[in-house]
């Protein structure tokens, strides 16, 4: 089912040149936005891979013979209208994709589409936009770069100072001895090094220091008990955010759709996965091994492209037979048994008494907030307009998700102290008349979350 347009090589090069020229007036950032908001759910972000919808790279050239940009624009806005008109190319795509309808985007302006096409082209030719710059350890809290490690300097300094102290102690001890000799006329008794070190003052000091440092260490470690920064559990499915959010540029909230409207960001249901994986049945990294687990969870038969009726009542053996067939026929590797075992392991759970393959995937929570804390995603995402990455870190670069922040109260509170509320544009905050007055007067530049009560106990604990 590959496109057959590659034979018009000359035309391709020509169009490429033209389209490169036409890039001049296009806003690539805006195009990227349009793409991510509207297209990324069905079309691959690299513009070269076929997903639910075709690979978009070089799309203009493919339409050139069938009404050119004008037809393409109306196709994007309302594909069914064009099919209805009988446009040859439109009907051809419609048939090719089993008559699945492309969503209408009537709200896209000509500029939007121009920007979008520009973006598609640049990605198709040059790879990800904006170009990825590989950084070392990027994405930290402050993002101010890694501070220089001074540990060795301190150790060196400590050794020098200790030596100095030893020398001084020796001198003092000897001087004392000399005074004693001078005053009493006794035989000099020069102290040995051992005697100097084991003198009661030194021992007391050492114990004192030990208690202080030990106490400090214990307390600071105890505070961290139960915190899970850096936690990176193995998940039942080797789902890669790097592939989905990174390479394919799928918007976070396409899958985690609760984040904008609920306290929970929501782990997507298997049917959300199926939006794309009905078409993409073999993965780029793990082949059939991982995607089959989704099918086994929801009861999709990839051999026949059908949801299996009465799937809940099927026995595990019957289920595995279906996927055995699929994996044997489609896997590039030779580990059918292993893959089937993987399905079993991912979808059953002895501890929870779940011995059926059919049913939900038991993911492992990465971020565990204590029960006595109320947290609401939509407050931060929709009202505060925060990026997911602010707290979750560069998820789009993670193959296995890792807890990026400690989720400690100090971490929350510090952020509430610094962060300014999105006062402008939200009628709700009109109630804060005094602050608005001060903002107008210029006696105030912004209002932090703390200043509207964001660090009070019952914002989070009730």
């Amino acid at each position, binding site marked *: 089912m590959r496109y057959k347009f590659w034979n018009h090589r000359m035309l391709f090069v020509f169009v490429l040149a033209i389209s490169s020229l036409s890039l001049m007036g296009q806003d690539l950032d805006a195009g990227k936005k349009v793409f991510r908001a509207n297209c990324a759910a069905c079309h691959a972000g690299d513009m070269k891979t076929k997903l639910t919808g075709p690979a978009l790279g070089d799309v203009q050239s493919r339409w050139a013979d069938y009404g050119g940009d004008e037809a393409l624009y109306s196709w994007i806005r309302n594909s069914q209208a064009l099919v209805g008109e009988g446009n040859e190319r439109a009907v051809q795509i419609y048939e090719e994709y089993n008559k699945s309808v492309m969503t209408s985007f009537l709200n896209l302006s000509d500029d939007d589409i121009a920007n979008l096409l520009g973006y598609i082209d640049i990605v198709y030719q040059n790879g990800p936009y904006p170009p990825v710059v590989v950084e070392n350890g990027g994405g930290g809290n402050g993002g101010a770069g890694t501070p220089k490690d001074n540990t060795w300097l301190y150790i060196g300094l400590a050794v020098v100072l200790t030596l100095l102290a030893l020398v001084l102690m020796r001198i003092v001890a000897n001087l004392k001895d000399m005074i004693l000799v001078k005053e009493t006329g006794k035989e000099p008794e020069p102290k040995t090094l051992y005697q100097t070190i084991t003198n009661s003052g030194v021992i007391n000091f050492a114990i004192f220091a030990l208690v202080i440092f030990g106490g400090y260490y214990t307390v600071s470690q105890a505070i*961290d008990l139960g915190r899970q920064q850096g936690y990176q559990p193995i998940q039942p499915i080797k789902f890669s955010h790097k592939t989905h959010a990174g390479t394919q540029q799928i918007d976070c909230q396409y899958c985690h759709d*609760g984040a904008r409207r609920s306290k929970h960001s929501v782990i*997507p249901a298997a049917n959300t996965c199926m939006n794309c994986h009905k078409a993409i049945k073999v993965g780029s990294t793990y082949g059939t091994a991982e995607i089959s687990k989704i099918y086994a*969870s929801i009861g999709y038969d990839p051999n026949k492209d059908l949801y299996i009726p009465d799937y809940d009542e099927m026995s595990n053996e019957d289920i595995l037979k279906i996927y055995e067939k699929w994996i044997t026929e489609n896997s590039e590797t030779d580990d059918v048994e292993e893959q089937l075992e993987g399905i079993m392991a991912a979808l059953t*759970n002895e501890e929870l008494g779940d011995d059926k393959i059919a049913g939900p995937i038991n993911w492992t929570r990465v971020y565990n907030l204590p029960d006595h804390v109320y947290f609401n995603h*939509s407050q931060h995402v929709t009202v505060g307009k925060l990026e997911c990455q602010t707290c979750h870190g560069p998820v789009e670069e993670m193959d296995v998700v890792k807890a990026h922040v400690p989720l400690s109260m100090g971490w929350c509170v510090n952020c509430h102290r610094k962060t300014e509320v999105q006062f402008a544009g939200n009628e*709700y905050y009109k109630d804060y008349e005094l602050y608005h007055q001060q903002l107008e007067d210029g006696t105030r530049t912004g209002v932090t979350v703390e200043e509207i*009560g964001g660090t*009070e106990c019952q914002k989070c*604990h009730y």
Partner: protein
Amino acid sequence: MENHKNNVWIGTDQLNNNPELAQAEQSEFKEKLPMAGEQGETELRLESNRRDFLKYLGFGIGAATIAACDIPVRKAIPYVVKPDSIVPGVATYFATSFVKGGDYCPVLVKTREGRPIKIEGNSLSSMTKGGTSAKAQASVLSLYDTSRFASPIGKGEGMNWSDFDKAVMTQMSEKAKIRIVANTIMSPSAKQAIADFTAAFPLTEVVMFDPISSSAILQANEESFGTAALPSYHFDEADVIVAVDCDFLGGWVSPTEFARQYASGRKVNTKHPKMSRHIQVESYMSLSGSNADNRVPLKPSEIGAFIVALYNEVAKAKGGTRVSGPKLDAAKQKKAAIIAKEMVAAPGKSLLVAGSNNKGEQILVNGINEMLGNYGRTLSFERPLLTRQGNGSAAARLIKEMNSKSVDVVIVMDGANPVYNFPNAVAFREAFAKVDLKISLSGTPNETSEECHYIAPNHHYLESWGDVEPKKGVYSLMQPTISPIFAAVGYAGTRQEGESLLVWSKSTNLDRSADQPYMEYVKAYWKANMFPQQSKISNFQQFWDASLHDGVFEAPIHDYVQNAFVGNTAAAAAKVRKPASSDLEITFYETVNMGGGEYANNPWLQELPDPVTRCVWGNYLAVPVTWDGGNSWSAYQGLNPEEFKGKADDVMLTVAGAEQKTTCVRQFGQPNGTTALALGYGRTVTGMMGRALGNKVGVNVNDWLKVDADGNVQYYATDAAIGAVVGEDEFACVQYHHTMGVTAKDESGAIVMNEAGDKPLNVDEKNIMTLGDGFQGGLTNRSIIYQDKLDNLPHLKEHIAERRAEADHLNKQTLYPFDQYTEELYSQGHHWAMHVDLNACIGCGACQVACVAENNVPVVGKREVYRHHEMTWLRIDRYYYGDYENPKTVYQPMMCQHCDNAPCENVCPVAATNHSSEGLNQMTYNRCIGTRYCANNCPFKVRRFNWLDYTTGDLFGGNEVLVNGEELPFGADNLTRMVLNPDVTVRSRGVIEKCSFCVQRIQEGKLTAKKEGRRLESPDVRSACQTACPTEAIVFGDRNDKHGDLAKRLENPLNYLVLEEINVQSSVYYAARVNNSKEELEA
């Protein structure tokens, strides 16, 4: 007069100025920690000693270290296919109807992730207009009742449905004489299902009975107007309401609807100095009676004579024929004349209602209302009320038939419990044993299901499809808010009772292959019957969707003609009850929480104090209080001399020769020579073995009830006797708990002194002497309740203004710059406050249960309540004023007042309680270390301490004290825990908790406004108590919102702050209580 105004009292011990009480009131807590002295050896599991402590310590450190290395793995399990209507973390609301026998309330059910967790009123209903009752609020808990049947049961064994149906159907032949016993059925589709069943078994008859019967009214109305139904009552249209032994606010017929109507005529304001007049004639202190303007106490046997007297007085004025009947003494006769005069003076604007179950009396009541021209105005048959349909004579016939073995099968519908509360229950029990096949459709075990051969458990109403017709032409739908619980987790599960009947009758109208057969059945019924009644929507599916969305549908009224009154009043007068000459009479009455006993295994209702007696977990014998003159009050036979110490007398009560042990409570307003005991208690089978919550709580009075010649149950007896005192009870009455200390002045205005007469009682003399009367906590002149007569309204307004100015003056003598705080902190953003209209509050307790449900307040049990450990965040204080033997009552909902100068905050050593910039007094549980200083310093006594591990929320349970001697406290079961509100923390032992102003709702409301980018409006934030209130007595809101609902309420000049003089700057405003009493009917 000035002092009289605030001269409220709470009980005889307080009136007697008992010095021990004064002492007891000064300490916040009844006992000190540890509570070992209070506990028996068995309860205190002293498993640990010092060595154990060290072991735990070592283990704790070790465990924590290991825990730090090995992070506990927590799973997150998403949906496979997520339903569109559910967003995890966001509540979804469904409109449905709460129905239990004759109790009805249209509701919205809040569900989270598919779990119903809270009931709200449906404001689209024309009957309740969004109000709810305590019973409706508590009904969500019964969904998660651990004692519910999970599968059908045949002869004691669990079965699956197909075997069960086979077994039942082989035993029912077409010629079988079948009787279906049920409480009032208000569902048209259920009646259709019974009709379909009858088509297959033609010898089927339905016997409806009500646990608390109004069958005499039905009989009287049939005879008077040819309609065997209750009329619609319009308390809002009446200027003069006269209720004769009729608790229309507490339980009679349709209390939530009536409360709404009643309150609309009672909300008084200096701008609208007009309110309805309510006269209660009664033989016990009912909830309605306690709210009345004038109350005429009578013995129960005198009610008939009083109605005759009323009839004759009205007839005299209206020129009707007088009837002859039993006579009253002159004083009572005179009162009847005064009442009749008042009613006559308001033609068509008065309303006489009687709770009597005597046909003759009800015909006379109809005659009086007819003469007064009230039909078509304050009551009418335009939309007859269908909440009571039980028929006395059919009940008597059933017993006879069963005795003669002419009944083959008895099917008992869900909710009905005839073995316990059928009319003439003793006779029923004997006859019932003779039936060959008995099938119960009850969802939970009860006395009747124990006797049945087969049990086909019904769904809970929150799992059911159905409909209700509470009034003719007023329909209400019922839809499932959760899929049937037990079937979903591997049991055979429950099945809707209508469906069971249709299956057994092999009805072709039930499509058994459908996904939800009974839904299709109800839908088909609506398509055929309700859909044609309207013309607005032409497409049935749209009509169905709209009705389901709204929850209610009202068919337009067609031309209606009021039938003329044709009752024979002379014959009726001959039937009324005759005054008896016995020394002690007894009234059996219905309470707001227990109904006829159907709610016995709902611990939220068991633990809701009865508003009048303020007792929990049981029915208590109300004994009258007498004023002995001077400063001394005593009760009948000197019973219960020291109630405040938690002591009450157990006595042997004999009625009709049968005796039972009951516990007494002193009851103001109980007429001399009478006593009263509530119905609905003494159930013996209410739940599964060992966890029986409502088992043997209180006394079963049903066997004492007599049935008269018309088959009507009589709720009184004239041959009662209180025998010997047999012991002392742990008295679970909250009246003396958490008192604020009422004014310590006597009638004359003098400060009450101690026994030696040298020191003022309970008063800080130094403060009074140096700083003046009432300064900062002095008990001499406390502003807790303001009340006055309607005629004195300008005076009351002035008095309140004066007292508030005085308090303001005192409060200005402070070092703290309040004005500055207000300007800097509270003047912008939100500043939350609440307003409670004491005139609208009838004390029904719906708010209290709503608060329990919303805020995960634990159930503690009777013994814990006795020990002052009740956990409710909102209590309803009851104060009396006026005449000592026949007082008036004020109910005052009391919750955390969110003081802006809070005394509790200053004393917390760990700042676990502190203030927010929005004026909330915040409580942070995980910071609280349990010193209880805050509770000790709270002048309103609204902070609650978790003395024991009521929720099993603690980490190391092994060393905990048992709650009520049970291994697993109530609410610790996983099924019961499904009712918890996930947005509110479950508190563990050793922390203080209190009303948070529903901060979770505040936060949610603010977030909604923020997300929609608009200002916060009043409907965004409504506290749980506010939404539950049937009378709109409570309004919550933002003081800074000048156009909100609260702002309107705050304009009322009758508003005051409780204890304003102590300068705590509280945030809950109360509007003073006004009564419309007339001197000539006093005392």
